[in-house]
C-alpha cells in the first residue's frame, strides 16, 4: 500500500514536471499584465550583498533611472559613490576617480545580453526574460514571485538564478551568482514619467 502511494506520488511529480511550461508561461503573461510600464521609471533602492565567507552583509543605497530608448543608470550613494550605466551597446562603471570599466557590445557581445536582461528586470518588462530563462512562480492575491534559471551554460556561469517578486511593480530582485555571492535589491518609491529631462538625457550621451 505504501509502495503504491509512493508510486502515485512519483507519477504525480513526473506529470507536474511535464506541464509547468504551459502554466509558467501563463504566469509570466499574468505578471506582465499587472506591471506598470512607463517610458521613464525612477526609484530608490537598497542593495544587500552577501558575499561567500563574509558574514557581514554589505548594504548600499542609491537611486536609479530606467529610460526606454536610452538605458539605465544605477547610482550608489553610500557607503561608496559609484555609478553603473547600461545602454543597449555599452556597460560602464565609474566612481569619483573616473571610469573603472567600460565594455562595448562590439568588444563583448554578452553586454547586449546583460543589457537586455537588466533592462527587462528594472523596467518591468518581464515577458522579455523568457528568451534567456526557464522560469516558475506563483501569483496570488495581487502579489507574485518568479524564479528564473538561465537556459544557457554561458549565462549560468555568471548568474545562477534570478528571483523577482512584487505586486504592481517589481519590488525585490535577488541575484545569485554561480560563484556563491548573493545580491538582493529592494526597490522603493518608484515614479513614472513620460519623458527624460534634458539633463538626464545628457548623462546617457558621453
Amino acid at each position: 500500500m505504501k509502495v503504491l502511494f509512493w508510486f502515485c506520488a512519483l507519477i504525480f511529480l513526473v506529470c507536474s514536471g511535464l506541464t509547468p511550461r504551459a502554466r509558467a508561461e501563463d504566469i509570466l503573461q499574468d505578471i506582465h499584465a499587472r506591471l506598470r510600464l512607463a517610458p521613464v521609471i525612477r526609484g530608490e533602492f537598497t542593495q544587500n550583498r552577501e558575499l561567500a565567507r563574509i558574514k557581514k552583509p554589505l548594504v548600499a543605497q542609491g537611486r536609479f533611472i530606467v529610460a526606454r530608448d536610452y538605458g539605465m543608470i544605477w547610482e550608489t550613494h553610500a557607503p561608496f559613490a559609484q555609478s553603473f550605466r547600461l545602454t543597449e551597446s555599452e556597460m560602464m562603471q565609474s566612481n569619483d576617480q573616473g571610469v573603472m570599466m567600460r565594455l562595448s557590445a562590439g568588444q563583448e557581445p554578452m553586454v547586449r545580453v546583460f543589457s537586455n536582461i537588466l533592462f527587462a528586470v528594472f523596467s518591468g518588462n518581464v515577458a522579455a526574460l523568457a528568451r534567456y530563462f526557464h522560469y516558475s512562480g506563483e501569483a496570488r492575491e495581487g502579489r507574485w514571485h518568479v524564479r528564473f534559471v538561465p537556459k544557457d551554460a554561458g549565462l549560468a556561469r555568471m548568474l545562477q538564478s534570478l528571483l523577482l517578486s512584487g505586486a504592481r511593480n517589481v519590488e525585490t530582485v535577488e541575484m545569485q551568482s554561480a560563484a556563491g555571492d548573493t545580491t538582493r535589491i529592494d526597490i522603493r518609491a518608484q515614479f513614472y514619467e513620460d519623458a527624460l529631462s534634458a539633463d538626464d538625457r545628457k548623462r546617457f550621451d558621453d
Partner: protein
Amino acid sequence: MIDSEKFALWHRRAALCWLVFLVAAISFLLGDVQALKLRVDSDLLALLPQKEKNPQEEAALRALSLEGERQWVLLVSAPTEDAARKATALTRKTLEALSFFPQDAAEHSPIDFYAPYRSGLLTDADRQWLARAAPEEPVTRALTLAYAPFSSSPLSWENDPFGFFGNWLQGLGESSPLRLSGGELMTEFMGKSVVALFYSLPGSAFDANIQSGVTEALAEARDVVRQAFPDARLLSAGVVLHAAAASRQAQKEMRLIGLGGLAGTLLLIGLIFQSARALQLIVLSLATGSVVALAASFFLLDRLHLLTLVFGVSLIGVAVDYAILVFAQHLGRRESLWPRFRRILPTLLAALTTPMLAYLCLAITPFPGLKQMAVFAAFGILGAWASVLLFYPYLLPEQLQVPKSAGYATRLLEYWPRWRGSRAQWILALLLLLPVLVGLTRLSVEDDIRSLFSGAARLMEEQRQVSEILRLSSPAQMFIVSAPDTETLLQREENLTARLRQLIAEGKMSGFEAASRWLPSQARQREARALQSKLTESRRRLAQTLGLAPDAPLDSDDTHSVPLLTPKDWLGAPHSQPLRFLWLASAEENHMPPSSLVLLRGLTSPNTTGLLQAIADAREGVRFVDKTSEVSSLMQRYRYLLTKILALVCFLVPLALALFFRRQVWRVIMPVFLSGLFTLALMGYLALPVQMLSLLALFLTLGMGVDYAVFLQAQQKEAHTLLATTLAALLTLLSFGLLALSGTPALATLGLTATLGISFSWMLTPCFCRQADPVALRDS
C-alpha cells in the same frame, strides 16, 4: 632516289614507334581514370610558388591552410535576435535534410581551467596599475567591487576581490566575437543579430562531388530562407566555395574555348580545303596532341590544375598550324610524296623550335602554374607536330583541290601594301611612329598577384564580410616566431604582441591571435605573482574591514602554491583545441626549434606591412610572412628578368636568322618587332598594365610571328604560304581570343596580349615580303 627510299624506311620505323608510344600513352591515361581525375586541382594557391628554402614556414602555412580547408561557415543575420534564430532553425533544417550537420555549438569554457592559475594571470593594464598603485588604492578598488551591484568576474568576490581575473578573461574574449546563447553561437554586427553555423567537409575541399554538394545545399538554403524571411541574409565563406566557383568557371571556359576553337578550326579547314580527309587528319593531330599533353603532364607532374587545362585547350589554334602548313604545301601538287615531304621538313622543324623556346621561357619561372602550362603546351604541340610529321604522309589524300579562296589570297596579296622604302612611306612611317611612342609612354606596370587571380567578386565580398564579423585573421600575412625553447618562444611572442597592441591603439590594425594570449610565459606569470604579493597587506586590511577571520585570509595564498601554467597543460585543455594550430608542435617532432604563429587581423593600409617587416627585423626569432607581397615581388623580379631576356632575344634572333636570310633578314625581323611595339603601344592606350604574364604572351607571339615571317619569306610561292599563315593566324586568334574572355584575369591577360600580337604579326608580315611576282596557283 635511293636517298628517298632510305628516308621512307626510316620514316616508317619512326611512325611505328610513334604509334606504339601513343598506344602506351592512351593505356596509361585510361588505366586509372578516377585516380587521374583526383589529381586535377582547383586550388589557386597551388599555382603560386612555394618557398623551398624554408621548411618551417611551409609547415606553418600548410598547418594553417589545412585548418581552414575543410571548414565552411554559414552566417545567418537578421535585424532582430528572434528573426535570426528562426532563420537559423530553418537553415539548419534545410541543410540537415541534405545531410550537412553543423558542428556542435558546445563551448569549452576556459574559466575552470584557468581559475587555479589566476595569481599568475594579469592583463597589461592591471599589471601597470598594480605597479604604480598607491597603498590605499587596491583597498578602495576591492571595496568598490564588493559594493557594486553587478560583477564582471565569474568568481566570487573573495576569490577575485580586485577583479583581475575577470579582466584577464575578458581579454580572451577579444579573440572571437561569438558567444553561446540559446544553443547557438551568436554575435552582433552593425545592429544585426548574427548566428554562426560551422560545417566541416567529409573530404577535401577540392573534391568535385563535395564541391557540388556544398554549392547546391547552400543555394537551396539561401532560397528557402529568402522566401520565409525576406529580411534575413545568409553569408557563407570557405575554401570549398572558392574552389567550387573556380572549377565551375574553369569547366565552363574549357567547354567554350575547346568547343569554340574546335568548331572554328573544323569549319575553316572544311571550307577552305573541302576535304573530309583533311578534317579527319586535323582531328587526328589534335587528338594525339591532347593525349601526349595529358599523358606527359600526369607522368611528369603530381597535380594538374584546371586552369592549365583551360590554357591547354586554347592551344588548339597553335597545334593545327603544322597540319595547315602541310596541307598548303600539298595543294594541287603532282610531285611524288617523299621528295616533297623532305623539302618541308626543315620548315616544320623550324616551326617547332620557336614555340618550344617560348614555352621554355614559361618553364623557367618558379611559378608551378606556369610550369604546368609549359609542360602541357610543349608536349601537346610536340604530339600534334609528330603526328603531322609521321602519320600524314601515309594518310594524305591523293590530291587536295586548290580552293577558290587561294585565288582570293593571291589577289589579296597583290593589293597588300608593301614596304618599298619610298619617301611617302617613310613619311607615313614617321607619322605613325608618333602615336606609337605616345602609347609606349602611357604603359604602366603591374606586379600585384591579386590582379591575376581575383576570385569571384561576390564570393570575395562575402568572405570579407564573414572575416570582419567573425574577426578572422588574414591567411596571407602573419608572424612566425621561433626560439630554442618554448619559454623563450612565449617571451618573444609577448614582446612582439606588446608592440602589436600599440599598432592596434594607433588604429593600424584591429587585432591579432597568438598562443601567448592564452598561455603567458613563465616569466610573465612569475612577474604577475610578484606584483600580486604586494597586495598581502591590502588583503589583510580588507579582511579586517569586512570582518573575516584572520586565519582565513582573502583569496588565500594557496593559488601561489599552484604550479605555473605550462604549454603542456594548455595543449591538454579542451578549450585550446581550436587554437592548437598556432603552436607548431610538428616542428618539435621534426627536431626543429619550437615555433608558433602570430596571426593578424584588419590591417588598414598597405604601408603597415613595411612597418610589420621592420618590427620583425628588429626582433630575434621573429619572421614576417607576407605571401601576397612575396609573390608580387617575385613577379616583379621575373618581369625584369623577362624584359632582359626579351632584349637579348631581340638581339640574337636577327643574328641567327641572318645566317639564312643574309641581307634580307630585316624583312623577317621588322614585322615581328613592329607588332611587338604596336601591341605594347595599344596596351598603353587601353590602360592594360604590363605584367610578367603579358611579357610571356609577347614571347609566344614573337615565336609565332617569326614562324609566319619565316614561312612567307622562305617559300617562293607566297600565295600558298599566305593562305597557310592566314589560316594559322586566324585559328590561333580564335583560340587566344576565346582565352581573352576567360574570367581568370591571368588567362585573359595572356589571351589578350597574344591576340593583339598575333593580329599585328599577321598584318605586317606580308608588308615586308619581297615583291616577287605572285605566281598564280593554277600554274603550279
